[in-house]
């Protein structure tokens, strides 16, 4: 599993404050190419904030102050000239499914269109491929014109994943994607992720500890804005991880 290629995402000494409240207090970690990195931790531990700094949507949060560095493919994200190109490199799936108030087709075609793809055939191919990858194609192929917002929660979440894949990202970030959907759909999406893992890097923030265990190659444990431990998933979930707190959290003793 572990490769020697340079990491695709490097985070060093990352601090984020919202006003007076510190959300991240000096995180240092790396994400390797084509791995699934699981990030676990209780609520308010800074997981979502971490994802937001990677694609720089943190810029849109009023009052957020960022120090430290985040590099994607060796380039500091804060020195990136075209932040929109950076964001297209990263697919982001939010906790609650968000179908845009557009047709299913337009939902998936949105990102490529905004990036300047106009060719109808190319768009159609891409929409089909992404919907297939997200295991949604068979359910919606006959009603691509209907509104994305009218799909069920689970379908909307897969639509969100299809949209996140639509701009050919190299990194896919999922933020507690199973929070609003049923276990069966969750398992289907997990299957999708297993398949994707061979081609792209996945950062999986999850509140379901077992989900990280099932999918992740390595797992990071965040607590109160600090990185408690980052290691191979087997170690994290073993009886003797490096940090006592990890053991306690993983085994449900607190959190």
């Amino acid at each position, binding site marked *: 599993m572990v490769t020697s290629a340079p990491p695709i995402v490097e985070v060093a000494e990352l601090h984020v404050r919202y006003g007076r409240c510190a959300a991240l207090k000096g995180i240092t970690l790396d994400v390797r190419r084509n791995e699934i990195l699981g990030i676990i931790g209780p609520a308010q531990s800074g997981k979502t904030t971490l994802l937001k700094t990677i694609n720089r949507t943190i810029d849109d949060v*009023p009052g957020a102050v960022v120090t430290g560095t985040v590099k994607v493919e060796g380039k500091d994200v804060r020195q990136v000239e075209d932040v929109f190109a950076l*964001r*297209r490199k990263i697919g982001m799936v*939010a906790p609650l499914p*968000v*179908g*845009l*108030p557009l047709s299913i087709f337009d939902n998936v075609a949105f*990102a490529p269109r*905004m990036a300047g793809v106009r060719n109808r055939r190319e768009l159609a191919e891409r929409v089909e491929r992404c919907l297939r990858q997200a295991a949604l194609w068979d359910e919606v192929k006959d009603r691509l014109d209907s509104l994305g917002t009218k799909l069920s929660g689970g379908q909307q979440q897969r639509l969100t994943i299809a949209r996140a894949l639509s701009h050919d990202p190299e990194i896919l970030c999922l933020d507690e994607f199973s929070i609003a959907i049923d276990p069966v759909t969750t398992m289907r999406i997990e299957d999708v992720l297993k398949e994707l893992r061979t081609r792209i890097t996945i950062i999986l923030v999850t509140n379901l500890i077992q989900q990280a265990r099932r999918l992740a190659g390595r797992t990071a444990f965040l607590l109160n804005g600090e990185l408690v431990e980052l290691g191979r998933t087997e170690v994290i979930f073993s009886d003797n991880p490096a940090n006592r707190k990890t053991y306690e959290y993983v085994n449900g003793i607190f959190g």
Partner: protein
Amino acid sequence: MNDHHAVFQATPLTRRKQCSEVIAMVVFLLMTSLIVLPLLLIVGYLVYQAWPILSLDFLLTSPKHGMRAGGIWSPLLGTVYLVVLSLVIATPIGVLAAVFLNEYARDNWFTRIVNLAVINLAGVPSIVHALFGLGAFVLFAGLGKSILAASLTLAIMTLPVIIASTNEALAAVPMAFREACWNVGATRWQTIRHIVLPNSMSGILTGVILQVSRAAGETAPIMFTGAVFFKAIREGHLFAYGLFDQCMALSMHLFTISTQVPDVPKALPYGIAVVLLSTVLAVNALAIIVRVYLRSRKKW
């Protein structure tokens, strides 16, 4: 303890309370109906008085014989000009200002000042707008008393209507949509253009329609900036006014006929009032219909 039935019966105190409840209800109902009643009375009275004169001819002929005869074509056309032109000026500025407040500005002192300015703009008396229009557009900009100067004055005066209504509509679009768009690399403007604005259409449209109603009814701001008591125009011609012409306007015409011109036929001013009032009320009704209709087909 055998007397189970008595337990939940009203005591004198509760009965008194219930009584006061009813009285409160009736008092407030009365107050409300005293507000609603005048509307019906006024409309009924005006229509009753104007009835003999109302006809298509009344709308389509210009005033004649020192405005004591004929219809209201030229003021009607003038009002249309003023409304359309002020709409064209105010809509883009108002919508974009609301976009700024909602999508670009953060909640800081500057935004607060902009908000305060919008509120004050709405509160400035119409006659002060008239003075401004006279000073800025007629004299300083050298537009003279003209349709253009009057429309500019009206546009600035009605700007807050569009800003307020657009603002409300933009705020109703969930933040999650914007975040989803930013996440896939859409720029701010792309997000606004493709997601936020299309889904705020009902609010923007409502604002625009209300602006029309407001602009059509105003008198003071156009009195000294472009509207005149009387102007002869070519009959039956839609483009009878030029941008730098002065014009007649319905609201101004009502003022003129009812205060400045002696010996007019009794029904004539009522006819003008009814046309003006029904135009404005119809436009408002349209705004309400649009709002209800578009709300019913909300996309999320």
